[in-house]
């Protein structure tokens, strides 16, 4: 009966990146369109609150002191509380306040908002998808599979985006990659303000996309000891590509 399985996918450009929603299963629930609409509507709202490009977003106004945290949407306080926890969990290697050229730290929670928002929005899919779904936000993926097959996720080769390093099979949780392949803005070591250059990319998978994303970003900033640090994380697995091109994985990550 697997031949009768159906798939549907929708894509929108939000928060400056492509975000796509995918459903797979033996039957599609009638209210799937409403659920997908709810996903995208929620992500647009997150963008409105947290955009660092829009000078009128709540985050920008908060950073300029024009709003107090109490005056912001409660989601802003939730994200900043998570950011504090992320800084603690990573020994300061994940920080939403980046040192700028003048030494003044600017608030940019984008690195946390993406995983947080994607994981949160994917809950709309969990309510309607009988079998399998995933949400891919610019290469960071929140997923669930209750059907016969796991999701097969290719890990991009940072030196040759035409190819994948390998495939991991995942049923639930999230997988996120930090690296230099497509972007050069969020790869600063927050402890020094300098560019992190020891690694090409770090991929982390685990039960939560939010934390997989945070750990991948922090591990990238750590550099040389990233794999050892990832190996200590309970429930999360990692893959590191070093500057010289070596591919290293934690013990629980099976690359196919």
């Amino acid at each position: 009966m697997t031949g009768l399985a159906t798939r549907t996918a929708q894509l929108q450009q939000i928060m400056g990146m492509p975000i796509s929603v995918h459903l797979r299963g033996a039957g599609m629930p009638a209210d799937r369109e409403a659920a997908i609409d709810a996903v995208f509507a929620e992500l647009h709202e997150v963008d409105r609150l947290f955009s660092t490009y829009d000078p009128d977003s709540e985050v920008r106004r908060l950073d300029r002191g024009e709003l107090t945290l109490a005056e912001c949407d409660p989601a802003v306080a939730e994200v900043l509380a998570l950011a504090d926890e992320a800084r603690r969990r990573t020994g300061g290697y994940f920080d939403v306040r980046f040192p700028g050229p003048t030494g003044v730290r600017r608030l940019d929670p984008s690195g946390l908002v993406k995983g947080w928002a994607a994981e949160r929005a994917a809950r709309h899919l969990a309510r309607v998808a009988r079998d399998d779904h995933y949400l891919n936000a610019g290469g960071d993926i929140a997923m669930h599979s209750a059907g016969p097959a796991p999701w097969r996720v290719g890990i991009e080769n940072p030196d040759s985006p035409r190819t994948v390093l390998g495939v991991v099979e995942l049923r639930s949780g999230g997988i996120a990659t930090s690296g230099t392949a497509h972007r050069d803005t969020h790869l600063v070591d927050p402890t020094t303000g300098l560019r992190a250059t020891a690694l090409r990319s770090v991929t982390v998978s685990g039960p939560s996309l939010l934390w997989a994303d945070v750990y991948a970003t922090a591990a990238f900033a750590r550099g040389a000891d990233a794999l050892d640090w990832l190996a200590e994380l309970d429930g999360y697995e990692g893959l590191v590509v070093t500057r010289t091109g070596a591919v290293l994985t934690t013990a629980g990550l099976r690359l196919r």
Partner: protein
Amino acid sequence: MVSEPKGLSVRRITFWIMSTVAALVLLFSYRTSTGGTAPAAVTAAAQAPGIVAAPPASPSPVTGSSGSATTSRATTVNGSVAQTQWGPVQVQVTIAGGRITDVTTLRYPQGNPRDAEINSYALPALHDEVLAAQSAGVDAISGATVTSDGYRTSLQAALDTVHFG
């Protein structure tokens, strides 16, 4: 039920495309223009989105008894023009025998020599990737963030036009 496999296959193609193109397409996302978005100095006029070439209407669906029928039944469709930070992007997709057989870039940012240099290797890479992806057996790709996705947007529009989405 004869028609089911065809419907399934085109959905799957869309799926492959969306999943895999995303990872690399936006080589466009490199900040190739240092002075912001320069209007593309040399670009062909945009081609109208939609089907530009389709097989002759046949009186009945092909049932698969004719092995050679698939290769000649190519549909060519233009995607919409996607506006990106670096300029407009438009692609054209050719579908034959239920598979994407070619992807051509009709329009891309070329506001300065660096754009042209990037695109000179990005576009062939994309072309190869799209065609290779159909046999890769991968549902999704985890990669470093792409910041823009005009190519993918236009590609999806092309596929939607022929109801392959």
